[in-house]
């Protein structure tokens, strides 16, 4: 008897999940794409001029060549090279962990660096720090690759000529003399936004010694307007931080507080109020108003598509509603300042949202994006004041800052020739400065420019001195976390190329002690311990100084300052129309403002929302694309503020109409090999008056299909098998197990495996649980996995061929309610769900049964093992994997050049990657790149399959250390939750949990008992070890469209939705 599964056809009456517009449209192209096992597979790719025949020809030639020189096969003599002097703390083969931190524009990020024989290989969050849970963002995960960037600045340059560090020291000595002579006259420092007490102390000292010296600061993704409003209303040196732990209702007005504007403590606290562990009572509710899908918008219960230029009007109208129902005097006065209301938005939406905020007065919070004008911030601050947020959901902190001028002041000083010498200690203004400033010209007009830069970039190229900057893993320093906790920056390694840190340069100018002494001097003001040495040691060991958060500022909103700020509002911008389009410049999720453009991990990482790699694109909505008659990959010319820019287009579901999003950070022209030829430079359109968005832009189509955008999105279709399951709080209350018996899993006939089940009798049984309710999709886990498991980067061309190597991916699904007559453009306003997907470690693994050489087998601990040295590369396993999580090394990505192109030679191969030269391609990994590799994980070669191992090296390390500890005592029980997978470790929202199922107190066991736990493709009897917790949304029933939120598994009546009769028993022989 044979069981034939009949998957229910996709649900056409309720909500559908889709991953791309092609899938939704179900075009013939998409069909053929799906029909290939490895889409656009190796054998038949002909679209770029290489036919199968050509390929075979080349390979035959390569084989012949290989036959001649087999001498490499013999074992070479290997050497054991000990140290000459024993090194303190260091044990060869064992990791040494150091606490450090990473500087960032929002504050320091506490980290623990893993080092092997003195080289840092992996960064993890420091869970000891009270505001951290050990999570990180993806920039911190990728930072270690920056340390080993082969394109780093290696030499000191003076007017383009190579010189030495000693020469530069001599030069700085001269500068110091000049400073002394003129009290700092004519000397300026350009800084970035940082919270380093040592740097601040040196700047103060510089200011005292040389009061005429000037400080300027510039962040391309600026906080200037926000700080302007806060300082006017609350006084100087005040910062405001959201306290999500107290917030029941959060309204985000284009504030991506879970994404590009995140502080990790916020992500952690938000998710702790979001995750459902037994009860939905404490679950928060999120409203998002935004022009493009952000990670925050994806988490929202209610999302309102709104052009960025209309968000101020939205904020004002929301404030009006709140003022109406709270009768707050101050907010009432703010509202009365405006004579017009701007574009009218959905009134029910605004009313119900405001009612929800007011109903939870003191437990609600409104956030607005950092880059909106100051008057918008003041309206929102007044609104929060009316809602009683201050002291509850908003903390007002006293954050001392060094006074600096902005870039405009710097330009003015340069133009008036008062500035003779400029030290650019950070940033890349030639690339990032507003286009109308002509920064490049300004910089050249300054007689002497000294640039401290991490790599040769646009600014270095036009500076007199270029000084290589030390990585934060190479230098002493300090940081304050966003909550103020004092954190050390410890060097893990001497500067690889003799670079200097900002503190090094400042200490020479101020004649203050340098390096560790500088930080010790600062630390004195942070400790009250009598024993300084003990306190210092503890500070370095734990990675933070206890009880050092910022003090609460005892100030209140000063309503008298409001009218002044509101005067700057002018008239609200008119609505966006096809002839008056707005252009928005968001931060990029991967390269931020361009500073990470030469990081290969980040370039290859699919953008969390668009799944675009190695590129940026103009994002627009489907209706806008229709109106402009453009499609994916068409190149358009955008004209805004008298400037023009050509860029490719990509249709983004959920985008506001007549609004274009151009993420910053690409299209750099002086950059290393990785960042070259990636994307376009959106800074070209960005002017001083339009730092966040420009209005009244027009668009012209230049070339149809002019640019190949490479996404990882369509590569893996799930064919409507309801892998993501979600419901609402109401559904959960009705039936907490709503996610279990739905679709094919409902009344599923018992399945019997034909194959023998592996004996799972080991004392540990490993498993994972992923909470879809907490996952924002930020992709820190993907980069963490890449760093931990030595996963290579493959380059744009190979990603196009669906050969990316990431062991874990994040599937992003859009969901929309079809058949709604009121909403004809259903693709335009979907919901978004993230699903991390990695090897599910099926107990009945389909991959294992088809491997002809037993290269993938099961362990007694329930791990689906991949044995590289057995693998012969048939790829049957990948064929048979229902989740498509196996990755094949089509080339030796580690040792062959992935970015170099074939210039001449074989016809049909010009312009393709040198990978296609096979054995004729240059061989070998750069020495500096080898240093990053995790010594506990095999570096795979060509022709081998690989996949998520549940971080088996960490499991084995834990088991071995327990055995070593046990010795002859024989107690082999691992402490509860002592093994963390790299993805779990990196997750700031605690969505991923890994551990031992045999231990009932482990977190993974506890999550398994939650009612919303479900497993993928249960009806196939896979017995997956990774479980998912269904997503639960918390819509406000009174909001418009609330009935359609989160309704995939439960229909409008609250009943579980089933598919067709699920299985049909067929009897081929006709006998019963």
């Amino acid at each position, binding site marked *: 008897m044979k069981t034939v599964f009949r998957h229910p056809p996709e649900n056409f009456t309720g909500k559908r999940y889709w991953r791309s517009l092609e899938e939704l449209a179900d075009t013939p192209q998409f069909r053929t794409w799906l029909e290939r096992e490895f889409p656009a597979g190796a054998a038949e790719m002909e679209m770029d001029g290489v036919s199968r025949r050509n390929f075979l020809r080349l390979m035959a030639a390569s084989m012949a060549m290989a036959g001649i020189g087999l001498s490499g096969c013999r*074992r070479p003599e290997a050497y054991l*090279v000990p140290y*000459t002097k*024993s090194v303190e703390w260091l044990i*060869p083969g064992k990791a040494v962990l150091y606490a450090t931190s990473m500087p960032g524009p929002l504050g320091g990020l506490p980290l623990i660096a893993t080092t092997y024989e003195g080289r840092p290989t992996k960064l993890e969050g420091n869970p000891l720090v009270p505001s951290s849970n050990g999570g990180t963002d993806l920039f911190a995960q990728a930072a270690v690759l920056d340390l080993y960037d082969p394109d780093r600045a290696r030499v000191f340059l003076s007017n383009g000529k190579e010189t030495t560090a000693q020469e530069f020291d001599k030069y700085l000595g001269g500068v110091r003399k000049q400073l002394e002579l003129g009290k700092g006259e004519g000397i300026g420092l350009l800084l970035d936004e940082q919270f380093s007490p040592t740097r601040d102390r040196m700047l103060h000292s510089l200011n005292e010694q040389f009061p005429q010296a000037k400080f300027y600061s510039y962040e391309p993704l600026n906080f200037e307007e926000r700080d302007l409003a806060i300082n006017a209303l609350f006084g100087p040196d005040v910062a405001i931080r959201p306290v999500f732990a107290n917030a029941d209702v959060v309204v985000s007005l284009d504030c991506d507080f879970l994404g590009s504007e995140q502080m990790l403590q916020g992500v952690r606290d938000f998710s702790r109020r979001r995750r459902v562990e037994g009860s939905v009572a404490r679950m928060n509710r999120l409203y998002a108003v935004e022009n493009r899908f952000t990670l925050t918008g994806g988490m929202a219960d209610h999302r309102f598509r709104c052009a960025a230029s209309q968000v101020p009007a939205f904020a004002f109208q929301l404030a009006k509603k709140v003022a109406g129902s709270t009768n707050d005097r101050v907010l009432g006065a703010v509202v009365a300042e405006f004579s017009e209301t701007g574009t009218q938005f959905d009134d029910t939406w605004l009313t119900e949202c405001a009612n929800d905020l007011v109903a939870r007065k003191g437990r609600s919070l409104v956030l607005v994006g950092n880059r909106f004008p100051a008057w918008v911030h003041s309206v929102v601050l007044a609104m929060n004041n009316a809602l009683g947020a201050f002291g509850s959901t908003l903390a007002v902190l006293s954050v001392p800052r060094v006074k600096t001028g902005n870039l405009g002041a710097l330009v003015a000083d340069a133009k008036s020739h008062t500035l003779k010498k400029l030290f650019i200690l950070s940033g890349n203004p030639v690339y990032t400065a507003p286009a109308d400033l002509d920064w490049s010209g300004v910089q050249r007009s300054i007689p002497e420019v000294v640039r401290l830069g991490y790599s040769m970039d646009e600014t270095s190229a036009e500076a007199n001195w270029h000084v290589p900057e030390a990585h934060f893993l190479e230098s002493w320093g300090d940081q304050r976390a966003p909550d103020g906790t004092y954190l050390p920056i410890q060097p893990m390694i001497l500067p690889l190329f003799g670079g200097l840190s900002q503190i090094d340069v400042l200490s020479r100018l101020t004649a203050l002690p340098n390096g560790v002494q500088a930080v010790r001097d600062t630390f004195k003001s942070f400790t009250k311990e009598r024993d300084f040495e003990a306190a210092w040691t503890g500070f370095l060991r734990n990675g933070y100084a206890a009880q050092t958060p910022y003090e609460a500022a005892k100030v209140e909103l000063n309503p008298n300052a409001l009218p002044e700020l509101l005067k700057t509002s002018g008239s609200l911008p008119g609505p966006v129309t096809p002839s008056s389009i707005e252009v928005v410049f968001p931060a990029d999720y991967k390269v931020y403002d361009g500073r990470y453009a030469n990081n290969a991990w980040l370039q290859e990482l699919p953008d969390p929302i668009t799944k675009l790699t190695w590129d940026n694109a103009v994002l627009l909505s489907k209706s806008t694309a229709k109106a402009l008659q453009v499609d994916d990959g068409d190149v358009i010319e955008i004209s805004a503020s008298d400037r023009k820019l050509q860029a490719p287009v990509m249709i983004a579901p959920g985008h506001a109409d007549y609004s274009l999003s151009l993420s910053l950070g690409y299209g750099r022209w002086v950059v290393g090999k990785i960042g070259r030829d990636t994307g376009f430079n959106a800074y070209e359109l960005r002017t001083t008056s339009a730092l966040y968005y420009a209005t009244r832009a027009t668009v012209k189509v230049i070339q149809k299909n002019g640019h190949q955008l490479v996404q990882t999105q369509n590569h893996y279709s799930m064919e409507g098998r309801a892998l993501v399951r979600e419901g609402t709080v109401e559904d959960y209350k009705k039936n907490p197990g709503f996610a279990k018996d739905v679709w094919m899993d409902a009344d599923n006939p018992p399945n019997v495996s034909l194959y023998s089940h592996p004996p799972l009798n080991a004392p540990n049984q490993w498993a994972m649980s992923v909470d879809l309710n907490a996952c924002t999709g930020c992709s820190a886990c993907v980069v963490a996995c890449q760093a931990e498991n030595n996963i290579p980067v493959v380059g744009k061309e190979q990603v196009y061929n669906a050969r990316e190597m990431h062991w874990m991916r994040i599937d992003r699904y859009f969901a929309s309610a079809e058949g709604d007559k009121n909403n004809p453009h259903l693709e335009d306003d979907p919901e978004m769900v993230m699903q991390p997907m990695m090897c599910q470690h099926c107990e009945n693994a389909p991959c294992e049964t088809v491997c002809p050489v037993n290269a993938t087998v099961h362990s007694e601990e329930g791990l689906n093992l991949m044995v590289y040295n057995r693998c012969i590369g048939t790829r049957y396993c990948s064929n048979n994997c229902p989740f498509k999580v196996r990755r094949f090394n089509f080339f030796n990505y580690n040792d062959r050049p992935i970015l170099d192109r074939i210039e001449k030679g074989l016809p049909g191969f010009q312009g393709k990657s040198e990978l296609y030269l096979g054995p004729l391609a240059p061989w070998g990994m750069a020495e500096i790149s080898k240093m990053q590799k995790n010594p506990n994980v095999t570096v795979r070669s060509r022709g081998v399959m690989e996949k998520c191992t549940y971080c088996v090296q960490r499991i084995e390390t834990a088991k071995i250390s327990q055995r070593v500890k046990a*010795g*002859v005592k024989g107690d082999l029980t691992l402490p509860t939750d002592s093994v963390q997978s790299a993805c779990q470790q990196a997750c700031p929202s605690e969505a991923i949990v890994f551990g031992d199922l045999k231990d009932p107190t482990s977190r993974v066991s506890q999550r398994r008992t939650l009612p919303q736990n479900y497993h993928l493709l249960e009806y196939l009897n896979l017995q997956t070890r990774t479980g998912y917790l269904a997503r639960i949304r918390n819509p406000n029933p009174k909001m418009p469209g609330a009935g359609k939120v989160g309704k995939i598994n439960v229909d409008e009546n609250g009943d579980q939705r089933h598919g067709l009769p699920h299985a049909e028993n067929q009897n081929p022989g006709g006998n019963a």
Partner: protein
Amino acid sequence: MANIFPRWTNYLPLKIVFCLLVLGGALSAFYWYYLTPEYMRAGYQPIQPVPFPHDIHVTQLGMDCRYCHSYVEVSSHSNIPTTQTCMNCHTQIQANNPKLAAVRESWQSGNPVDWVKIHQVPDFAYFNHSVHVNRGISCVSCHGQVNHMDVVYQKEPLSMGWCLNCHRNPENNLRPINQVFNLDWKPGSAESQEQIGLELKQQWNINPPQTCEGCHR
């Protein structure tokens, strides 16, 4: 009747045999050189930069293995001593011995001594010293009686089958924990190795991994 076969054919069989011999020889040489497993060269005894005699240091002078290989109990690697360790004694003892020239030179210049690696497992096999020596497996089980070697050589094949033999039957190599670094230890006359091994295996909960992830990651 003329000869059907010309005269030169008389030597043809001989020539064929000769060619086959040469071809066979070449093939054997090829297989021997290229295709024998690289990690099973029991008997491999390369020349070291310093002719370090283990027998003098261990057997004659009674030094413990862990004086030099100091991290064997805590790390996956059994470290090779630093030049500093050598110079602890050799600044005074044999301070001018020409055989130690390389060590002295390293001490002065700071450049390490390049010892030739003898025991080598493939890169995809992760052997851990600490877990073996802390659980009753002596150095001698894998390295042979290094304490009696003048020049160290590879005693065992270190092949996967050889590893698994012990992982399947650890009783053949288990010994009392205080005898792990005594390379001359033999089971007492009353008991056989197997008896002792089985007893210790039971007592210490010895359960060596036999699935792939134990060594391949």
